[in-house]
Each structure stands twice: as structure tokens, then as C-alpha cells.
């Protein structure tokens, strides 16, 4: 066999530019909607919406809901629902707040601001969230109580467990290491941010190359080289552009001065420093990558989608769908607790109403992001983009000065319209709604 014939089936026929790039048109549509939204707000607010400062705030406000939305994708894909995530967040947050302020310092005989206390509190919180999630999953998977009912009950139960644990009080101030996960109190700074951009870009490009090599090795069709190059370039520009924006948000000089004083130094004349990537945002990025890998490259993820597509087929294929339900809900619980770290650290306190109505935001984010309530369909990046769109809408309207009731009316309508558009889109492309 000559090289030419061997290569012939491996290149695709001529197609349109987007077809060759193999970019999900649905994703493209969402990004388009998001860009239009941002530009519109930017125009109305005379350029205040797209400032480094506002974008920085937008990203740290999105993290908490986005973390939970990635788990909600799995829940909804397996044809379940979780209405208890906001309450679960509150209980996990309450447990961590009590652990780090009232219990651990005495128990360990160390100060409030010891790093050990922060680490232990987070581990305890994550375990609590996971255990509660697994328990709810067991009720759904093994006792066959509908998830809607289990988590509706959970919504009440865990909200009030949190209340009981803290006697309804605001708990704080929290451990200073714990607060690093909140956003503005924990950022990478300029150097580390750029280093991250570099590492992320190299990793993404390497993944592209590895995937192409693997396909070529099995003599499968691959995209034309220019398309791969264009995607690689797009990824690099996006990553560096995003980091540049976050670095461009400068730490105010008063705050810088205090930081130098705390270290026993004097702020040099003309010294400036950007915030860079917040640790919470970094966490979300890493989580998004991990969850995407889980959903596409692991058996667990494959079974989640198979079960959502046809539960009977999954069962007959030897998949233990009951245990799978427990695992999916346990993962959701873990993510609620992770979200609780970010949310309470951002507020610098545990408050009694933390996470209230988050279940609706999280479900809305997943659904706007293209997760079908009929099961079997959904993506992690879609859910995160959904969370970002919701948050932009909310804070954009606040910035414009829309009255609070109208803000919620608009968000509610956008949710319904987004699902309608999604249904129409799926009908046209012949996919399953």
C-alpha cells in the first residue's frame, strides 16, 4: 500500500469552515449570545461592564453556582433532579464554619488562623457534603423514592440543619487561610497567572496533538491540519486573553501598602501589582477539566450518559444503575461542599441564608447550558457557560439599575426562552430533545 492510498481515507471531504473545525454549533450559539449580552450591557453602561474590575468580579461571583452546575449536569443527565443543593451548601458551610471557629482550635490547641484548622475544616465539610449526597442517592437508587421528592425533603431538612447547627447566627470571622478560596482575598498574582496561562496552553495543545495521533494510529478520519491549527490558536488566544484581563485588574495602592506593611516592608514608589487569577476561579477551571474528562473518558461518565439515554439498556448491559445513582448524588454533595467553601469564604462569614435559591440558579445554569431534562444529553462547559450567562445577566441589570423584581422576572423569562430555543435547535438538527 502506498502512502497516498493509506492516507486517502484519513482526510475528510471538503466541507464548510465550521464543519471542518468540528466545533459544536450549539456551543457557538451560546458563546455568541453571551458576547452579544456583554456588548449590550457595555454599551448601556458606557463601557463600565467590560472593565477588568467588573470581569474579575463576574468570574468570582459565578464560581459557586458553576461548581454545582457541573454536578447537576450528571444528575439531570441520569434523569434525576436535585433541589437540595442550596441547602446542602448551607449545611456544609455551617459544619465548616463551626469546625473552624468553635471546635478545631480548642481541640488542636492552635490559633483561629492556623492553616491546619482551615485544611481540616475543609476536609470535614467535603466529607459531610459527600455523605449527605450519597445518602440521598441511596434513597433514590435503592429505595426508589423519586429524586424530586427526596431532594425536596432535603431542601427543607438541610436548610434547617444548618440553622440548628449555628443557632441561626452569622459565624465569623473565618480562618484567614480558608478565606483564600473566596476570590479577591486569594489570587495568584501576575507571575503565577502568566505561568498558569503558559502551562494551560501547552497542556491543551498537547491534548490536541495526542488525540490526533491516536486517531491517525487507528486510521480514523481527522480534521485538516489547518483546522487543528486554528483551534489551537483559538485556545491559546482565549487563555492568554482571559489571564491578561484578570492581571489587568490592579490591586488598589492602599491595599498594596497594607500588604507590604504586614510583611514588614515599605511599598516602593510606583510599584503596582495586578490581582491575577483568583484561586476560586482556578479551582473551577481545574474542576471543569476534570469533570469533562470524567464525563467523556471514564466508564463512570459513559455509564451516566448511557443510563440517561436508556436506563433499561444500561441495566441489561450489566451496569449497576442503582450504585451509579448513589455515586452521582455523592459527587453532587461533594461539589455542594466545595461550593460552600467558595461561597462562605467570599462572604468572609457563614450566614444563615447562604445558598438560598441556589438550587434554581444551578438547575437553570445546567439547562441553559444545554442539559436536557429528558436525560442523556448535557455538557460540563455548557453548564459553566450557562452559569456565566445567568450571572452576567443579573449583575449587568444591577449595574444598569433595573429594579430587583424586574431582574428576577427577566432571568425567569430567559430560562424559559433558552429552553424553547434549545428544543427548536434540536428539532432542526434532528437530535433527541
Amino acid at each position, binding site marked *: 500500500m502506498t502512502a497516498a492510498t493509506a492516507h486517502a481515507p484519513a482526510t475528510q471531504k471538503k466541507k464548510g469552515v465550521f464543519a471542518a473545525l468540528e466545533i459544536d454549533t450549539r456551543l457557538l450559539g451560546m458563546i455568541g449570545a453571551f458576547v452579544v449580552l456583554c456588548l449590550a450591557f457595555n454599551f448601556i453602561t458606557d463601557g463600565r461592564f467590560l472593565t477588568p474590575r467588573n470581569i474579575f468580579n463576574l468570574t468570582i461571583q459565578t464560581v459557586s453556582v458553576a461548581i454545582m452546575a457541573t454536578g447537576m449536569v450528571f444528575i439531570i443527565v441520569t434523569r434525576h433532579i436535585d433541589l437540595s443543593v442550596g441547602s446542602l451548601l448551607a449545611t456544609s458551610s455551617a459544619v465548616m464554619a463551626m469546625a473552624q471557629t468553635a471546635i478545631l482550635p480548642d481541640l488542636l490547641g492552635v490559633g483561629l488562623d492556623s492553616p491546619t484548622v482551615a485544611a481540616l475544616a475543609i476536609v470535614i465539610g467535603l466529607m459531610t457534603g459527600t455523605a449527605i449526597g450519597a445518602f440521598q442517592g441511596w434513597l433514590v437508587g435503592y429505595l426508589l423514592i423519586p429524586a424530586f421528592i427526596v431532594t425536596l425533603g432535603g431542601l427543607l431538612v438541610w436548610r434547617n440543619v444548618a440553622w440548628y447547627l449555628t443557632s441561626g447566627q452569622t459565624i465569623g470571622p473565618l480562618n484567614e487561610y480558608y478565606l483564600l478560596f473566596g476570590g479577591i482575598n486569594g489570587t495568584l498574582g501576575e507571575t503565577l497567572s502568566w505561568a498558569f496561562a503558559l502551562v494551560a496552553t501547552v497542556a491543551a495543545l498537547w491534548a490536541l496533538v495526542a488525540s490526533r495521533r*491516536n*486517531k491517525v*494510529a*487507528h*486510521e*480514523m478520519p481527522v480534521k485538516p491540519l489547518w483546522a487543528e491549527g486554528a483551534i489551537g490558536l483559538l485556545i491559546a488566544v482565549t487563555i492568554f486573553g482571559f489571564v491578561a484581563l484578570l492581571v489587568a485588574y490592579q490591586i488598589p495602592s492602599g491595599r498594596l501598602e497594607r500588604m507590604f506593611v504586614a510583611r514588614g516592608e515599605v511599598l516602593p514608589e510606583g510599584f503596582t501589582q495586578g490581582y491575577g487569577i483568583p484561586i476560586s476561579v482556578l479551582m473551577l477551571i481545574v474542576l471543569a477539566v476534570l469533570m469533562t*474528562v470524567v464525563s*467523556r*473518558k*471514564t*466508564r463512570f461518565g*459513559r*455509564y451516566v*450518559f*448511557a*443510563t*440517561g*439515554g*436508556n436506563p*433499561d*439498556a*444500561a*441495566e*441489561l*448491559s*450489566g*451496569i*449497576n444503575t442503582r450504585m451509579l445513582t448513589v455515586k452521582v448524588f455523592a459527587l453532587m454533595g461533594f461539589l455542594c461542599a466545595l461550593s460552600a467553601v467558595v461561597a462562605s469564604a467570599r462572604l468572609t462569614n457563614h450566614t444563615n441564608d447562604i445558598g438560598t435559591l441556589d438550587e434554581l440558579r444551578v438547575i437553570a445554569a445546567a439547562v441553559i447550558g444545554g442539559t436536557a431534562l429528558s436525560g*442523556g*444529553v448535557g455538557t460540563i462547559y455548557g453548564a459553566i457557560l450557562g452559569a456565566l450567562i445567568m450571572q452576567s445577566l443579573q449583575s449587568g441589570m444591577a449595574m444598569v439599575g433595573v429594579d430587583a423584581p424586574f431582574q428576577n422576572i427577566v432571568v425567569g423569562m430567559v430560562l424559559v426562552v433558552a429552553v424553547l430555543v434549545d428544543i427548536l435547535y434540536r428539532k432542526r438538527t*434532528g*437530535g*433527541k430533545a
Partner: protein
Amino acid sequence: MSSPDRGTPLVELRDISLAFGGIQAVDRVTVDLYPGEVVGLLGHNGAGKSTLIKCLSGAYRMDSGEIRINGEKVEINNPRDARRHNIETIYQTLALADNLDASANLFLGRELTNAIGMIDEAQMEAETRRIMGRLNPNFRKFSAPVSALSGGQRQSVAIARAVYFNAKILIMDEPTAALGPQETRMVAELIDELKRQGLGIFLIDHDIHQVKQLCDRAAVMKNGALVGIVEVADVTEDDLLGMIIAGKRPEHLAA
């Protein structure tokens, strides 16, 4: 009934019973299957054929009775147990996850993974292309979800799944129900090919003509009970119809 010179049966279903609520869906049924043999299961809707066979494939748990494979008693409590004994089933409903592509369905529950436990998509697709090239050379839609496939294409995915994993015992529940004549012929050829390889096949079918053609023996059920097992060569299609409708063994075979 069974010829003594053929050694140990591949599968023996002995006195299988299963009731749903007050209804005796399967009532003390005994059937066996030898290597390289096709046994047809016949009967009206609700006669208990599919229920019986689901006890073997692990979809249902029988109330009483025993299953022997190569003479040894085995426990089959779920589809995983059945797969461990090299029992593969092609269900009437095909049991495909519509949102996944052909290779994901083919390997569902038995994905190929690489050194670090990640699913090896490319390897799986390559294997799928190979087996489909043998079963259904016209098959092209490897990356489309199976919901986008025709009835015949879906059928070939379901068959590929059963054949790929070196099944020794194959259960086919109305494999040609949704197919056109050409695809039906393809399935018939496949059954012959698998027979030659020494598989034992249970074939559930409504089409008596097809049973006459494809099967070696036919077991007829009515109202959950076994009417009788006959060598297909010894009976006419009318005899089989009589067994199905009246529940009587043909006169010339009645001992």
C-alpha cells in the same frame, strides 16, 4: 427428546418457574440447548417465551428451578452474571442507548481502557469498524448517535455487540422483527455462521416459516407451560401451528 449421543448440553433450564403477582408467567419449564444448535421458542404473545429467556439472560430472577451450563449449576442473578457465563442477548427492543454512538453501545459495560483506566475511544471505534465491516459492510455512521440509524443498522449494532465478545450462548428475541427482506437474509446467514462456530442459540420468533428454516428443534409454549419440544425436521408448519394454538403435540410424535 434430547439425543443421548450429544454429550453434555451447553445449557439446561430445569423446572423454571416465575410468577408475576398471581399470574404464572413460566410454569415448570425444562429446555436444553447443545453446542452448534438453534432451538426455536414458539408461542403466542404472553406464552412466556421472553420471560423464560430473561431468566437465562439475568433480566429476571426465577422463583424456582435451576440453570446448568456445561452440566454445572450456575447462579444468574443479573445481566452481569449472564455475561460472565458468555451468555449474550439480543433483545427485541435492542437495548441500545440512543444518545450514544455505535461503538459506545457495542462496548457498553465492557469499555476498552488504556493504561490509566481512561476509555480508549479510538481503539473502540477501530474495533467497531472491523466487526461492522464483517457484519454489515454498508454501515458508515460510526460517530452518529444510534437514534439516527435505521432499524437494520440498529439491529446490526445489537448483533455486533452480542457476537464481538465471543458469546457461547446467544439469545435472540425476534431478531428480524424490524427488518426488511435483505437484512433478514443477513441475519439468517449470520445464524448459520455462528452455528458452524459451535454456538448454541435460542431463537424466539413468531414466524413459523423462519423457525422451520433456521432451527434444529422447536420448543412450544402456551400459557407459561411447555407444550413440547420437537425436531423441526419431523414436523410440518401445520403441526407447529397446532402446538401453538391448541397446545397439543402432533399425533405422529405422541409416544
